[in-house]
């Protein structure tokens, strides 16, 4: 730990602690992992790590939403899903143990919003369900099941009946769920 801490300026470190739900150790670990991803020591902070590299992390490797997660947390202008260290910290913070329901549900919404239009419509939901059921054909739902499922989802959570689930509806649904907070977690 001591070796890595020297790379991250103390002021910045403490600011990161203030701004994330992470502890000092977690930030340092994140920094270590990130600089390993960068492949070189002491890289400048602005430099980004491409999505492909980030996705090699074991924590993200088997997550069906890995690409979405990268895209949501990326601040890159190129929209390529590459992450800077600060983006990476944002990601870990949102997925950390102590993050609030509000922030978790916000990011969950953005992750599920595949076309980034601010609402979850039928196509988003279909993609979401497909992500959840895996890539193989035997686990996939049939078209009929899918239609039924999506109509059921919309029936439940689309409160204003506009055919899509918006953020507040989403948060409303999520906030009642007993196990969202405990499962929306990534720990390095």
């Amino acid at each position, binding site marked *: 730990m001591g070796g890595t801490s020297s790379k991250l300026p103390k002021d910045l470190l403490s*600011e990161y*602690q203030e701004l994330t739900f992470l502890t*000092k150790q977690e930030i340092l670990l994140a920094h270590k992992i990130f600089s390993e991803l960068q492949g070189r020591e002491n890289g400048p902070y602005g430099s980004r790590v491409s999505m492909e590299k980030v996705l090699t992390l074991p924590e993200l*490797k088997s997550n069906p939403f890995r690409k979405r997660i990268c895209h949501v947390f990326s601040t890159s202008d190129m929209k390529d899903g590459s992450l800077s260290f600060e983006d990476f910290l944002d990601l870990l913070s949102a997925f950390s143990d102590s993050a609030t329901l509000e922030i978790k549900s916000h990011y969950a919404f953005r992750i599920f919003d595949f076309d980034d239009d601010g609402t979850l419509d039928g196509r988003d939901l279909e993609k979401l369900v497909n992500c959840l059921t895996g890539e193989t054909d035997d686990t996939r739902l049939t078209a009929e099941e899918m239609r039924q499922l999506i109509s*059921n989802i919309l029936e439940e*959570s689309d409160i204003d009946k506009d055919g899509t689930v*918006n953020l507040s509806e989403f948060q409303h649904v999520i906030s009642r769920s007993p196990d969202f907070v405990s*499962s929306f977690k990534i720990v390095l």
Partner: protein
Amino acid sequence: MPRHKLIASESDVSIEVDEGKDNEFSLYYVEVEESSKKGKEKQTTRDGRRRRDKNGDVSRRRASERRTTEGGNKRAEKKHERRQKTARKEGEKHGKRQRRKNADEEEAEEESNKEKKNIKNERTKTLKLEDEKEKDVKKKRKKRVKNEEDDGSSGKTKQKDCHAMPMKEKEKKKKRKKPETTSESECKSESESESDSDSESKDNQAVGVLGSLTPEELEKLKEAVEERKKLIATLKGKPWPMKKKLVILRESQEFVEKYEGALGKGKGRKLYAYKVMMMKKWMKFQRDIENFKTACIPWEMKIKEIESHFGSSVASYFIFLRWMYGINMILFGLTFGLVMVPEALMGKPYGSLPRKTVPREEEASAMNFAVLWDFGGYARYSVLFYGYYNNQRAIGWLKFRMPLSYFLVGVGIVAYSYMVVIRTMARNANEEGGGDDTSFNFSWKTFTSWDYLIGNPETADNKFASITTSFKEAIVEEQESRKDDNIHLTRFLRVLANFLVLCCLAGSGYLIYFVVRRSQKFALAGLENYGWWERNEVNMVMSLLGMFCPMLFDVISTLENYHPRIALQWQLGRIFALFLGNLYTFIIALMDAIQLKRVEEDIVKKNMTIWQANLYNGTVPDNSTAPPVTVHPADVPRGPCWETMVGQEFVRLIISDTMTTYITLLIGDFLRAVLVRFLNNCWCWDLEYGFPSYSEFDVSGNVLGLIFNQGMIWMGAFYAPCLPALNLLRLHVSMYLQCWAVMCCNVPQERVFKASGSNNFYMAMLLVILFLSTLPAIYTIVSIPPSFDCGPFSGKNRMFDVIQETLETDFPPWFGKVFSYASNPGLVLPFLLLLVLAIYYLQSTSKTYKRVNMELKKKLQTQNEENKKKNKLAALKAANELEQAKKAGEQRSNSASDLGVNEESSNIDEAGEHRQAGQNGHFIHSSQTQHTQNSEPSVSSNHTTTRPPPSRGHTSSGHLPGHPQPQKNSHSNRR
């Protein structure tokens, strides 16, 4: 990196100050003021120094002014000034860190210590004074206006430098007034506290504010600071990218520090930081405890794995098994720790008493495995069974009250089990009580079912599979609830099925009855003349019935075509009835056996006196001074000891039950799976998908097996203290064995379904079984006198006399008196009555609560609908306005103003729609409180009413809410 430099430069500055030349002071002022004037002064301290040279004249002029005005007190003021400045500066420097809630608070403290030292070097006296003052400040942080006065007064009361203190205050004010005029700074403070994004004006304000502020403005400033603090605290909860957060954090931290620094509450920070640190430590500790707790739950991974493969219903069996294991652990702890171990350690050793010795005629075969396996021989005459225990009141050097302990443990086991089962039931009922939340079944499955912690591809595959199954089962459930086909046919089939099941039950009951009668005949004739089958006939028949009848029921239940969950419950109920019948037949047989044994015991008792008389007569000529006759305890005749017999029966039953379970598992599941797997290649039909196929995991049968097993433990634990230990062993083995079997030989059920609803069903059955199994145990304890020569209660008329005895001998007499008064029926009956009344009262109140709850829910729904309507109306209104504005725009020739209005109205329209959506969600979200609910619609109505009312001419009749949108667009396009 620049931060490092900045710290270095700052420390340079402070060193400079420490050198303590008069000129330097003034320079320092300038520098501080200069640097604080600049928003980014930290990064540009060096520049600041350069500028200091440039602006040197100005500052010197200011300094000289100061000197002239303050004249003689100059020196003291300087010191104070400097101290304050350095303190503020340093406070800024490391206070920033402190308030960042970081983990290097220690460092910060070190730094503050350093700072203190510096100050001490300069002037210890003033430091003391300052300290006291600052303490004062800390106390009165809330009222800053008074603060300053208090500072002065406290300074006075301390009467050291009593001159300097007020002067210092004045000085402070004057100094701050200088850079700006009062009005200017006020102006800025106003704008600052509202918008406060401009960091440049902040410092001016910081300097100016304190000197010139009225209490209200100070109050405002305080609010602004608090707001900023709140912002800092909640910043991490904002879903913004890090860059934005960083900028805002820095800005608001600067802001807060400026003012807090200026308001001089340096020492308060330390306490605050300490508090924060402790808070964090405590939270962390709690989190660790939580983690530890979850890490302590055994078999979590196994169960998760099974869950991902087989769905929650199969996993629910294993969770139930684990729960049972936990309970048995406690039971085992009680019997082992309070009964078996004390007797083994402190009681008389084996062979000292007849009851602790294998009788002579059994000695030859006492170590044979067959006998031991039957829990005869040495196993029978050991701490495992009731008969071994001595009736000595207190044993060992601890004076352990063995009989009392035995009795209380027996009672405690039952009491604890009742408590746990009922508590669990109540908790489950609570969870189900929030039943309206199930309305998000599908959404939750979609939005929250992925476990982001999964990092293993295999687990992920399992998770995919389990999510798919859960989707499928949800869809199936949904369809099942909608589907209704030929009712008459299903009714007929259901009646038929129940008839068949009743036939099965009656048949099995008769079979057991027959077998038990037969076994009694065998027993009367002497079991030694019969073979293994005759001896174990009852147990085997019971086990076989328990094995095959459920299968039969399963076949029958396919006729009924129930929803899987309901089918499961029916199945459970039927098997329950079967097992219950078996168990009670068994108990009745046992009761008969007890009667037989007691008759035998009476005979032995008579013989005993004869034997004793013979013994004495034969060996001792002189009756009066009889030396103790030494007969080997093995030769002493003894009674049959029915309690041990009962205990043995239960232990045997448990053993045979366990064996049957395991063998069924091995043959029915494993062997079948092996055969199907390997014979499939050379068979004429497809075995895997055809007739035998692989077995499914039978949840209901297994759960019931577990429950009945537990019932037997409860029944028999009083007579065989080893039963909980045996059961623990059995549960442990079956956990692993069944986990393995389920993973390797079973296939997931075709109709998977959630078992969460059936948890309480299991519990209810467990409660019934608990009740039914304590009945016979209590009956035997209360109504049958214990054997005369074995067990802890021998020689007593009834087992519970041990309580009486303890009360009389171990407690002071008044206690016994009180107890006897309390147990007087005159007191007990009213007490019972009171209890009944209390139950009735609680029940009726709970009913009322339920009703009120339902009404509230209804109210919520109606309000929700009203709200929706209102929102729609608002949208309509907005559309009307738009229309109106458009009309107005067409009428008017001035296109510019028209455009503005139009845009505005379109904005309003969009905002209205947005609000509608947002409000709905938010409204329900916060619907627990009536208050927010009522306030929300009023907000929307306010919004709607503040807009110019639409003219009557354009009512909403012809317009749909979505309709004006394209019109508006086309309109603006046209323009």
